[in-house]
């Protein structure tokens, strides 16, 4: 079942003197349960593609359909709501809320969804245990290592039970041990809970774990391999 379907996607950044065609006519789809890595050199358009798929940036042309919903047509408010319910985000720089503890960071999105406390507590505890941080729930991000913060970010991304997770260079700031650990967790979640992951990465270890690798260059897909 297709979760993401992209048709003729273009994204052009108009600078003061020059226009950059960051995404140039991409057509692709992602099936439920995939573990996909988008690779390519710096400036190839990986992050832009992920941003447009996640509704964080507008497409200049073309369409992005998620689970049958054309997100280009949604109003800003509906799009925000859609992101909250359907998409989990993991960012390169973790981007946790610094004044909240690990537990509160994971709970935050469930607060936005208006879920009950008992439900939130159970889900938070389950997720933090799944990422190996059951003992560190009450620590603030500043008291966690980079790898631990990124694991909290993964737990946060999964808190709303999204249709898929977009992870933009999730291992770029991690050491090899933390990277292995994080990838194992994500792979396990993918296999056991059928959560769809879509990464953008430079990291060969991520590529090795991925079951599908899409390579893009100059905003175009130049290869799409399934393992």
């Amino acid at each position: 079942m297709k979760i993401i379907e992209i048709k003729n996607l273009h994204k052009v950044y108009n600078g003061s003197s020059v226009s950059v065609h960051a995404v140039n006519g991409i057509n692709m789809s992602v099936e439920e349960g995939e573990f996909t890595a988008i690779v390519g050199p710096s400036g190839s358009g990986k992050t832009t593609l992920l941003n447009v798929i996640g509704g964080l940036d507008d497409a200049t042309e073309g369409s992005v359909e998620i689970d049958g919903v054309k997100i280009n047509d949604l109003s800003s408010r509906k799009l925000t709501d859609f992101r909250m319910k359907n998409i989990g985000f993991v960012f390169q720089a973790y981007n946790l809320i610094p004044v909240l503890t690990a537990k509160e960071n994971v709970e935050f999105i469930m607060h936005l969804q208006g879920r009950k406390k008992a439900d939130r507590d159970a889900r938070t505890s389950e997720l933090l245990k799944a990422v190996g941080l059951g003992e560190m729930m009450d620590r603030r991000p500043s008291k966690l290592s980079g790898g631990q913060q990124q694991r909290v970010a993964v737990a946060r991304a999964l808190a709303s039970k999204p249709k898929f997770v977009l992870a933009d260079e999730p291992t770029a700031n991690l050491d090899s041990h933390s990277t292995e650990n994080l990838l194992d967790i994500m792979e396990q979640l993918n296999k056991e809970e059928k959560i769809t992951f879509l990464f953008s990465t430079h990291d060969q270890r991520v590529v090795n774990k991925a079951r599908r690798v899409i390579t893009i260059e100059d905003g175009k897909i130049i290869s799409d391999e399934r393992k």
Partner: protein
Amino acid sequence: MRTNLKLAWRNLWRNKRRTIIAISSIVFSVLLASYMRSMQEGSYDSMINNSVKFYTGYLQIQDTAYWDERTLDNSFEVDSELQNRIKEIKNVSLVSNRLESFSLAADHMKSKPVMVMGIEPEAEDQITNLSKKIQSGDFLKSGDKEVVISGGLAKYLELGVGDTLVMISQGYHGISASGLFPIKGIIKHPNAEFNKRLIYMEIETAREFYSAYGLSTSLVVMTDDHYRVNHIKQEIERILPEKNTVMTWTEMTPELLQIIQSDRGGGIIMLGILYLVIAFGMFSVVIMMVKERQREFGVTHAIGMQKRKLASLVFIETLFIGFIGCAVGLIISYFFCLYFFYNPIPLTGDMAKATEIYGMEPYMFVSMKASLFYNQMIVVFIISIFITIFPISNVSRLKITKAMRA
């Protein structure tokens, strides 16, 4: 909402120093504004008190012709029932008869035109505390046939307690008035002009001297709440006979009111400038608060927080700063001013002399009127609400990808 409050509160303290500086700037601004206004209003209260206590009273009931032509011929007979009904009006603290006129006062060598005030000594003392101003001798009592004269006059005429004063004047309906009056006491009148030429006499003695039996030129009405003066006036007007009129102190001394109003206008301009300084100080803090968190705003919006909620979060943070600053400022201002209310700063040198010339005590008085304090708090709080326009507009224009690159 609870999450927003918790988040806002924690965000406030993520940069403690900045928050403390922002709150302190509001505290000191509220303190400065409150003290400035309190001192200003305190000086007006002092001016009003001096004018009202030692001369006009808060209200006067007179014959309708008296104010334009202040002679004994325009005095009136006070109905004791009317006097009692006035006393029963809410917030009226005292009603006292006066018979005012002029005379020539002399000893064996010198003479001087003087103002004679026939008073009910006990009631008048409650109004003016004149007995406390006695330099030598004693203050008057009911039935006294003696007089109390002001210090400047005593000095000019070279008279002392126990000496006799000669007085010549024109009485009611042109009857000639003359008499010899022993001096019971010498008073240092707080008003410099009055101190040169005022004589107090028991009202019955004055009525006899001027042949104005049973008459008064005015009925002085005092209140324990001078902000109710106009209301009391309306109440008196309802029961007053046609031949009488009631005037407030502002009508009797309009020049004093004008001085106060023009000075208050200047004070408000100063206050406006101070509010601008406060506004810019708070604004700079809010700009820093918003600019340094662009990435965080981008992330929270990306994961599903609506811009409206994000804006309300920043709004709450700004309100927290404004509220804490105002509340602490209000408490400190109140106790700061309260200290100076009980311990007014004495004026010295030329300033003290000038103040005394205008009939005021040489002190910097402060007013403890509640509105002076909470008004400053309300204005500063409104400023803080107004300042939230900036972060709200910033959030409403937020672009996630741009914010996350910040």
